[in-house]
């Protein structure tokens, strides 16, 4: 189809003015992809699909959503009522909102798997360090976007979640007060906060689009890693297949499967037992009463546990910042020449334990703290950092297995 389209006169006209043919060839039909990519390589395409869906559903939600904390006659607020109106009165409003709210969780799920893939197969290593680093920037912006978005329905969790996080930034020495006021536009979370969060919530995903473009551009410069983590001769047909149609078809198939799961959740279980949309968020925000148990949405809970693991507030905040910042230097901590965990027995154990560790951290952050869970959280926090520090020494003791010649 693409072939015959490219033979038309119209295409020739466009091509002379844009160089479209060269782009299509270099990026799709003649762009080589390793032959042995497994299913872990489909999550990038899925993440892009979710990003587009979030932007589209968001734009339509914004046609009805009203960012105002002003009280209404019913005793709620303009923002809370507008979301309820989307749910009850707007045609297909419930579908838009659930697709968007569930989409936030699916986005993180997919991106976490995508990152795990990179860690396991060594995709963060030379020459792909910048791709990884841009990925970490994407993660941070996603977290920001989700944090801003979560305030918008102006429910109890929205309000108190935002209060806790803005106070967190407010506790940074010297600049804290200023940052807190810049975020809140006042001395506590209120109407000005809601307005600016809506503005930033609209902006951040658009920033994501630009950074994702850079992420892909860098990838297409150095080419994909592969499950064996070896360098491939990109012009040898024994190693590679053309991106289109081989990879595009595989990605499209994976996206279809993913959409079935995603839409199943949207239609049948959108709250996901309080994990995707927290129950307390159906209670309108009340600045005089903190809910009995507040926890962030699941995708932020690992970092929340790290924050809570320290008794001194500033240390907790510093540790949480460090746990994200360390992802930036991750490619430089690990000096081993071998990429894939398939050929690194010790790294393989460490990284699998790391994945389990993050899940444990997430669990601890979601549940009300008890003495035992606090200790479990502290041990998990310790391993989180020990994993990265351990990488500094690993190449000295690890015996890697011999790498295959080709694929």
């Amino acid at each position: 189809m693409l072939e015959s389209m490219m033979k038309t006169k119209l295409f020739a006209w466009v091509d002379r003015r844009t160089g479209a043919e060269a782009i299509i060839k270099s990026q799709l039909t003649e762009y080589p992809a390793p032959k042995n990519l497994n299913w872990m390589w489909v999550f990038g395409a899925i993440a892009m699909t979710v990003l587009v869906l979030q932007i589209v559903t968001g734009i339509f939600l914004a046609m009805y959503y009203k960012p105002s904390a002003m009280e209404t006659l019913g005793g709620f607020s303009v923002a809370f009522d507008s979301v309820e109106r989307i749910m009850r009165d707007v045609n297909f409003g419930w579908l838009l909102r659930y697709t968007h709210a569930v989409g936030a969780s699916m986005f993180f799920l997919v991106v976490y798997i995508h990152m795990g893939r990179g860690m396991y197969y060594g995709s963060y290593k030379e020459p792909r360090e910048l791709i990884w680093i841009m990925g970490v920037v994407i993660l941070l912006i996603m977290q920001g976007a989700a944090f801003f978005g979560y305030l918008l329905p102006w429910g109890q969790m929205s309000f108190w979640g935002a209060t806790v996080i803005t106070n967190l930034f407010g506790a940074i020495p010297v600049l804290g007060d200023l940052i807190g006021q810049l975020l809140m536009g006042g001395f506590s979370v209120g109407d000005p906060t809601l307005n600016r969060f809506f503005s930033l919530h609209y902006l951040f995903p658009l920033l994501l689009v630009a950074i994702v473009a850079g992420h892909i551009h860098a990838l297409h410069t150095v080419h994909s890693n592969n499950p064996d983590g070896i360098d491939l001769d990109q012009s040898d047909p024994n190693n590679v297949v053309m991106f289109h149609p081989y990879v595009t078809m595989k990605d499209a198939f994976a996206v279809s499967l993913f959409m079935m799961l995603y839409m199943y959740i949207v239609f049948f279980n959108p709250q996901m037992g309080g994990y995707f949309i927290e129950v307390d968020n159906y209670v309108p925000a009340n600045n005089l009463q903190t809910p009995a148990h507040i926890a962030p949405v699941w995708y932020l809970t690992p970092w929340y546990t790290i924050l809570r693991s320290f008794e001194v507030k500033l240390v907790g905040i510093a540790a949480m910042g460090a746990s994200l910042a360390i992802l930036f230097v991750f490619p430089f901590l690990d000096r081993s020449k071998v990429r894939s965990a398939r050929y690194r027995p010790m790294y393989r154990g460490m990284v699998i334990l790391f994945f389990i560790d993050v899940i444990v951290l997430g669990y601890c952050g979601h549940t009300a703290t008890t003495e035992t869970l606090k200790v479990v959280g502290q041990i998990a926090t310790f391993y989180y950092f020990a994993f990265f520090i351990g990488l500094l020494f690993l190449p000295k003791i690890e015996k890697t297995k011999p790498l295959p010649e080709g694929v």
Partner: protein
Amino acid sequence: MTEQTDHSRRNFLYVAAGGLGAVAGGAAAIPFLGSMLPAADTLAAATTEFDVSTVVEGQLVVIVWQGKPVFITNRSDEMLTRLDGHDDNLKDVNSEAIEAVQAEWMDTPEKRKTRSINPRYLVVVASCTHLGCIPLYKPSAGRAEWGDSVPSDWVGGWHCPCHGSFYDLSARVINGSPAPHNLHVMPYKFISDSVVLIG
């Protein structure tokens, strides 16, 4: 021609132009960031009046001052006696750590302990000094009423549900809490026997 290019002059111009450009760019950021700071009407310091005699003995009320919640409690004599005996277990017994936890009128050891002008009525900002949740009022001592949500040697006070900070009945933070400071006090005065003016 090229041999005649004056490189040092050219470099100077580059640096000067680039530097001024950077300064201009920085200056242009000021109105943008400035617009995000609290607006004049938000800043306009409102005051709140409240008649403390409406608070029943032993009870707590939460009122709003400048959009922030404020605790007012009426402490019985029995409750005031429970301010003693656990000094070792407090992070900042005399409220000296930072400015926000003390006030000019705290001029006697007694007032440092009760943290109030009239010992019965405690008036403090209701935001946990950890990350700003509103602590729950758990005034009776021991675990009888509160179960294991409070420590076994509980003296009565506040429990913050968010990350488990504890405060005594003078809102002084108890050791082991993630909150670093006692609850903040704000300026207030009695304008009659029972009416306080907050702010």
